[in-house]
């Protein structure tokens, strides 16, 4: 059985990716099970989807904990524990990352025995490490690149070596047809490029079989200890614990205040931020809380002197990392 897991953000077409791949396997004669897995899908928020494919009916269910292939549509998710990219990844797994960085860089960074393959599916404008600041400023909001999903599905299909190009074309057409010819064409061109880009790696993904009942790691079952209601009732006896959830991780576009232009009318941006993620300093200046800012950009739209610009988050992060390495300082990301 092929066990494949996709990781991405809301808005990147991850559910579509799993369906394109699922349909491709199905058209290639496999029994298939595919599903997205999300709480409530939020734009920019990490989510995953999975595909199982086998010649016999698929009986396994639930999230894939021992993936043969993990496909990461947005490389900013790899280092985010909450996204769960590395769950169950071992020496058998192939890790396909959509990134401008090299496989060797990722290998070192992740210290994993998994095989790492790079796909370069996102817009190259602004992604290029050598590009000027201006070019990078034009970088696109990753939550507005739904065709990343198609590319990831194409790359995954190629790697399995059991889905032909023709079958993939049929599958993508089938899944995206309801969105119109233009969308199909745009996705198809980009996806087929990704399919072709994987030609040197075809067959690198191999199936895995059922866990053995002869030798298995026993579940560490315990008897749940009884606890009084004052502890065991479903209640939270603390205030504002939500601040521990870093919703800043959803952000694909970062608002940045240009304090030269800022006129200090914090009552505009700070009031309009739905999440209350703009604080006011003692000096009466707005200060964006990047741990929690979701990047809705309402502040950008509402700022009277237009003193807030938006930069693609992955570009902003890259700048921070470069600045950190040159100054030797540590930046909070």
């Amino acid at each position, binding site marked *: 059985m092929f066990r494949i897991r996709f990781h991405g953000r809301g808005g990147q077409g991850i559910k579509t990716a799993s*369906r394109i791949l699922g349909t491709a396997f199905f058209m290639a004669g496999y029994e298939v*099970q595919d599903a*997205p897995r999300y709480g409530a899908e939020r734009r920019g928020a990490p989510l995953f989807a999975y595909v199982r494919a086998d010649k016999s009916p698929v*009986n396994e269910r*639930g999230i894939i904990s021992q993936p043969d292939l993990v496909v990461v549509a947005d490389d900013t998710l790899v280092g985010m524990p909450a996204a769960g990219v590395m769950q169950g990844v071992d020496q058998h797994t192939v890790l396909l990352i959509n990134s401008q960085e090299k496989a060797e860089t990722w290998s070192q960074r992740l210290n994993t025995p998994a095989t790492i393959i790079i796909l370069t599916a996102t817009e190259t404008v602004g992604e290029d490490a050598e590009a000027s600041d201006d070019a990078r400023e034009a970088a696109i909001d990753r939550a507005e690149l739904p065709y990343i999903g198609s590319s990831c599905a194409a790359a995954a299909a190629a790697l399995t070596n059991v889905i032909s190009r023709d079958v993939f074309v049929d599958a993508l057409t089938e899944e995206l047809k309801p969105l119109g010819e233009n969308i199909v064409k745009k996705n198809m061109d980009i996806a087929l490029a990704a399919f072709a880009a994987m030609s040197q790696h075809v067959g690198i993904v191999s199936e895995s079989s*059922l866990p053995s*009942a002869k030798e298995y790691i026993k579940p*560490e*079952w315990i008897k749940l200890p009884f606890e009084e209601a004052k502890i065991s009732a479903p209640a939270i006896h603390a205030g*504002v614990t939500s601040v521990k959830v870093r919703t800043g991780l959803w952000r694909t576009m970062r608002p940045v205040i240009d304090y030269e232009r800022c006129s200090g009318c914090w009552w505009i941006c700070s009031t309009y931020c739905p999440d209350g993620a703009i604080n006011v300093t003692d000096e009466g200046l707005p200060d964006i809380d990047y741990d929690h800012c979701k990047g809705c950009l309402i502040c950008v739209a509402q700022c009277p002197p237009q003193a807030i610009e938006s930069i693609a988050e992955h570009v902003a992060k890259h700048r921070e990392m470069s600045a950190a390495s040159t100054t030797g300082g540590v930046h909070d990301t």
Partner: protein
Amino acid sequence: MTRRLLTGNSAAAWGARLAQVDYVPAFPITPQTEIIEDLSLWIDRGEMDARMVTLESEHSMITAAGSAASSGVRVFTATSSQGLLYGMEMVYTVAGWRAPFVMINVSRGLSSPITLESDHNDIMAARDSGFLQIHCATCQEITDSVLMSYRLAEHKEIRLPAIVNQDGFYLSFTREPVSLPDADRAAAFVGEFDPENLQFKSGAPLSQAMAVLGGGPYSYFRYQAHLAVERALSVYDEIADEFADTFGRRYDMIDSYMMDDAEYVLVMMGSFATKARDAVDSLRQAGWKVGLARIRLFRPLPQQKIRQLLSGRRAVAVIDQNISMGMGGILHSEIAMALYGINDAPGLLASYIGGLGGRDIRQQEFFEMISELKQASDTGDRLQPRLLYTKNELTEIRNLQAIAQAEHVEIKQAERKKK
């Protein structure tokens, strides 16, 4: 017959479409919404000749379902957990009306705490109501069960509403291959809805669901409904045979897998049972004589078949994805009841409770259950009911509790007041 990938929700919607239902009272609830969205789109496009009305709550929705069915039209509706329970007064009532229709329940754990994920406590709450109850393990089974359920529900000896249950997320949002029966053959199988004497019409006085005085009359009506549910035991096999002949797929009341020489048996309901199939395969490879009995028809409870299948086994583990507070696993208690007093009862009838709120049951847990069954059978020890829970899960909740029980309120930084 076309075979395609469909989610459980789409499979359910197709079942309604192929059954040529007339009326769909609706109300949205996660994880069922895709069903009503599909139906609404087909109706809007003219692909399906039915009327859909969104009611303001499930209590109203189920009332409308029953009243429409009592007025001579074929009805389909769908709900889940909180919605099913909100309408519970009417669940009992419409069954008491002897109004036949089919309702999909997409199983989801019950509040509180509120969850969106699957378990069987919601559907279990309807078990005493008079609704027939069928539990599906695959998306294919959902479409097929909707068709079969109209035959059951509308059968003259039954004439009761039926619930077809599918697990939320694991089936509802998961695509699997489904062979959709050809529309004409499906329509022929289900047939036309004959409301008999159950329709309002000028010139035909009809007072339904009136009050009653006295335990005698009340008992008559209630006993009859119970007998009608039981009737499904004899009617079911005929319908299942006909379905198998027409469409090539066979659905027994209890789906047995590798049961012929099984010493150890797992008993389950719903989609997780397919996971247990894999576990049975792995265990067989490791030399165990294991089998799986999946209860598909839950109401009426196929007691005789349960006795036939489980008698003579060394040990049986019943896995409940539900919990009756203060008692334990509901399926376990019903199986125990069915087996009581028979010759050759299984040596051991163990109870495992898991899967609550979508909690996974891993292959290793199935393996360990069989291992425990063997050990207990060898030593003659009783096995206490087990609430499936691991050391890691306890650590996880402790970490969460540390946040929830924090002594001090954490005020976020940079909280300053401007003068």
